[in-house]
């Protein structure tokens, strides 16, 4: 099982952070693929709300999108920041892990960083290194 890439989007669809792992053979490191990805997430959010038999008490609907070749895990915060991770399809749901990234890494090292301006791309060193080691520590991360 492997992790392919990891992205953070802000509410207006800007990709704040992108990280690609060696397992991804076709690179998604370009603004066009981020826009496509954001468009998909945005559409899916509306669709999943529309299809819901009853309103979700947590206000969240979308958890993951699974295909034969990959699986997208999504987590959206109350402030509409989206965390997305793309993995091998056999990986179990990473929703909770994305919530942990938000709670313990994004809030602590990005939001609380006075030098970081909301809406800018994230280049906080602490965040980047902690995130990298967190992702590498996940059981689903294995070098292929």
């Amino acid at each position, binding site marked *: 099982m492997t992790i392919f890439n990891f992205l953070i989007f802000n509410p207006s669809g800007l990709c704040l952070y992108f990280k690609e792992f060696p397992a991804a053979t076709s690179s998604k490191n370009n603004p066009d693929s981020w826009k496509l990805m954001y468009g998909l997430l945005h559409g899916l959010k509306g669709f999943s*709300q529309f299809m819901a038999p009853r309103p979700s008490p947590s206000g969240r609907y979308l958890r993951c999108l699974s295909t034969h070749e990959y699986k997208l895990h999504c987590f959206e915060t109350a402030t509409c920041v989206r965390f997305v991770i793309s993995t091998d399809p056999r990986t179990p749901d990473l929703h909770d892990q994305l919530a942990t990234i*938000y709670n313990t890494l994004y809030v602590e090292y990005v939001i609380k960083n006075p030098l970081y301006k909301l809406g800018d791309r994230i280049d906080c060193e602490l965040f980047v290194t902690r995130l990298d080691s967190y992702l590498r520590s996940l059981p689903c991360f294995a070098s292929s």
Partner: protein
Amino acid sequence: MANFARSGEMAFLKADKINSEIFSLTYGAMVAQIMKDYEDIEEVNRQLDRMGQNIGSRLIDELFAKTGIPVSSNFMETAEVIAKVGFKMFLGITANVVNPTPQQYSLTFRDNPMVDFVELPDNCANLRYCNLLCGVIRGALEQVQIKVECHFVRDMLRGDETNEIQVRFLEQVRESALDQSFA
């Protein structure tokens, strides 16, 4: 309602704290400096509000991350969250929600660590010393797509018997047109 009070209490217990006197004194020093820099009282009020907005837009993420309370996009629900969770988490006090209607509500509170040792001199009668709080509330709600207007209607520093912040609903911002077409 009761569980908001509890999550506020829990978050407060877990949070790192600073001495409240240091907090009051640094806030006071900051307000005094802004008064020197801008000279005009109305401008000082505006600057405090703007600073608050920047603070609020960051605090909201911490609030959700630390308490895990569900997303409330309903304006009236935000009153309890601000009063019982937000105030408790970041100031160590709780506020009461007064006259909640779908269009506006008031938050009242008596204890306020920000105004310890503060007396307003006569020439600052129009200074809204804690205007930062209004900005915080506005900035925080803006991040959850709720636009509000927020101001002090009663202020103990100016001789009122309680502090009262009035929050008025302006609009719910949709994320984009795409959401609307599915809603």
